């Protein structure tokens, strides 16, 4: 089985700042990590490989230093790594990103399953997984929380919902986005780290992808950020304490006050 995992390098949520002038993320000096949901997608891919055989290829679109997350992924069990990198890709929104990723995946030597995290913690759109499936013209399921069975023809899994889960089945090739409940990502192994260090990383440029320049990067991105701001804190907050019975009573009093 050929598994592709799309991963993104994101600023470590612990020290993210916004540039007040440009309203974009100030990435300078901020540590970068693999998007945490993508780590779960990678683990899901590696587990499938271990169970059913096959290969895991990780793919990231980003600047040259995004190579770090690819090496990290190989240390955690991926076999091959592809960096999709070109100045022309800069400033891409999810529309241009899915176009570019789809071009890169189509350039691969076939695939059975594409895995993505449910969303990236910097943009938080959750659009890239579904958008990419649309571009590739394959079916997709979001919020996968457990894979029950997977053959080269079909995958059976649980999709997390607000109040439980659905059991779903989908023909392959297909795309999944995963939630963190799906697994516990592994710690990189010694052999993985040694392999990652030596690994030749393949780079795909815009020319390699034979991409339409008008669909790439800022140019290919219909999204425009009009304004970025921190929402004002609204309302008063107070802590209710005491026994459960006391807390419930207090809560009712407060609600009554609000309603009257």
């Amino acid at each position: 089985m050929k598994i592709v995992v799309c991963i993104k390098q994101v600023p470590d949520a612990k020290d993210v700042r916004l540039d007040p002038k440009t309203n974009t993320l100030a990435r300078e000096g901020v540590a970068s990590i693999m998007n945490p949901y993508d780590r779960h997608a990678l683990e899901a891919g590696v587990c499938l490989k271990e169970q059913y055989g096959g290969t895991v290829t990780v793919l990231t679109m980003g600047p040259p230093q995004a190579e770090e997350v690819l090496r990290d992924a190989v240390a955690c069990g991926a076999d091959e790594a592809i960096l999709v990198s070109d100045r022309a890709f800069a400033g891409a929104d999810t529309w241009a990103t899915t176009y570019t990723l789809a071009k890169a995946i189509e350039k691969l030597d076939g695939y059975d399953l594409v895995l993505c995290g449910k969303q990236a913690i910097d943009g938080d759109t959750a659009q890239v997984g579904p958008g990419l499936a649309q571009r590739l013209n394959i079916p997709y399921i979001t919020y996968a929380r457990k894979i029950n069975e997977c053959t080269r023809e079909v995958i059976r899994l649980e999709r997390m919902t607000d109040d439980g889960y659905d059991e779903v089945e989908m023909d392959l090739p297909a795309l999944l986005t995963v939630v963190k409940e799906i697994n516990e990502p592994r710690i990189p192994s010694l052999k993985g780290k040694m392999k990652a260090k030596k690994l030749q990383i393949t780079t795909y440029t815009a020319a390699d992808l034979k991409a339409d320049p008008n669909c790439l990067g800022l140019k290919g991105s219909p999204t425009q950020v009009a304004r970025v701001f921190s929402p004002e804190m609204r309302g008063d907050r107070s802590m209710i304490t005491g026994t459960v019975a006391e807390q419930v009573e207090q809560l009712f009093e407060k609600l009554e006050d609000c309603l009257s």
Partner: protein
Amino acid sequence: MDYFLTEEQQMIVDVARQITDELIIPQRAELDEKEEFPHEILGAIAQADLFGLYVPEKYGGYGGGCFEIVLALEQFGRGCVGVATSYAASALGIYPVLLSGSEEMKDKYLPEIVSGTKRAAFALTEANAGSDASGIQTTAVLDGDEWVLNGTKQWITNGGEAQIYTVVAITDKSKGARGASMFVVEDTDPGFSYGPKEKKLGIRASATRELVFKDCRIPKDRLVGRKGMGFIMVMKTLDLSRPGIAALGVGLGQAALDEAVVYAKQRVQFGRPIISFQAVQHMLADMAIEVEASRALVYNAAKHIAAHPESMSKASSMCKVFATDMAMKVATDAVQVLAGYGYMREYPVEKMMRDAKILQIYEGTNQIQRNVIGQELNKEYTRNS
């Protein structure tokens, strides 16, 4: 201090550190409290390839030796000596096979150790044979194509949790020091059972049990190396593994120092952080000196042992004594710095103090190590004069 590790040695440290920080430290208090064996953590250690550190590449291992396992054990010891002991005891248990086993034996057992599908244990001690191994009473008698074992081993780490046991038994009482042999017993062998799990002061995540052999029959080819070489294998095995115990001391000492310094900076008495009192500062300074001196000695002893397998004893005993006496002292001092809070289970230093004690006892007490060093000195100076 910088020990100028190679890139690969640093990778070993990094992998072991991540396991320690993300898995061992968050779980250690609960494992200790519940006296629970760390199955999940050992699984993660196996997945990270660290069970193969000391196993040659041809059996799927990394191909390192004493120094590589010392690097990993220092990290694990920083997290929890109970968990680390469970890992270390598996190495101890398989060393006789690694050192003296036949090619078939190595082919059979080493890959299972590397993959983590099986764990090993080392069984020497008996009720009447502690420091004095010559007192063992377990016997092995050849009966046709099988050895028949009878006797009871005591305080065996990984007892009941391991699948591969290296067991020392008397094969010819009249031969004295050449009267014992080493055997591999598997958990499923007939006539082999376990006593109850011991309740201990420290390293409570590790399992310590009695092994009971009642007409336990094993195939003839489970004899490790040659008959009569049991005690010699015991010496070599322990010489090779003791720097690992020393490394646990370094890791534990470092952890205790870290806790003490962090606490001393934030605890305010008489209007000042207690680290500003010279009495506290000097205690921390001594702890830091002793941890670093131990690390330097242990690293170098491990490298010496890897390079000079013919003269392991003195280096092995010296680093074990120094680093484990240090660990006991530094852990006790850390409790003193945290004082009442340190005495409470809410903080990790009381567990470190409980755990440190075993390091001075197992794999040969520190008194016995001093005997060894003294005897080696005597030999050296006789030779040189």
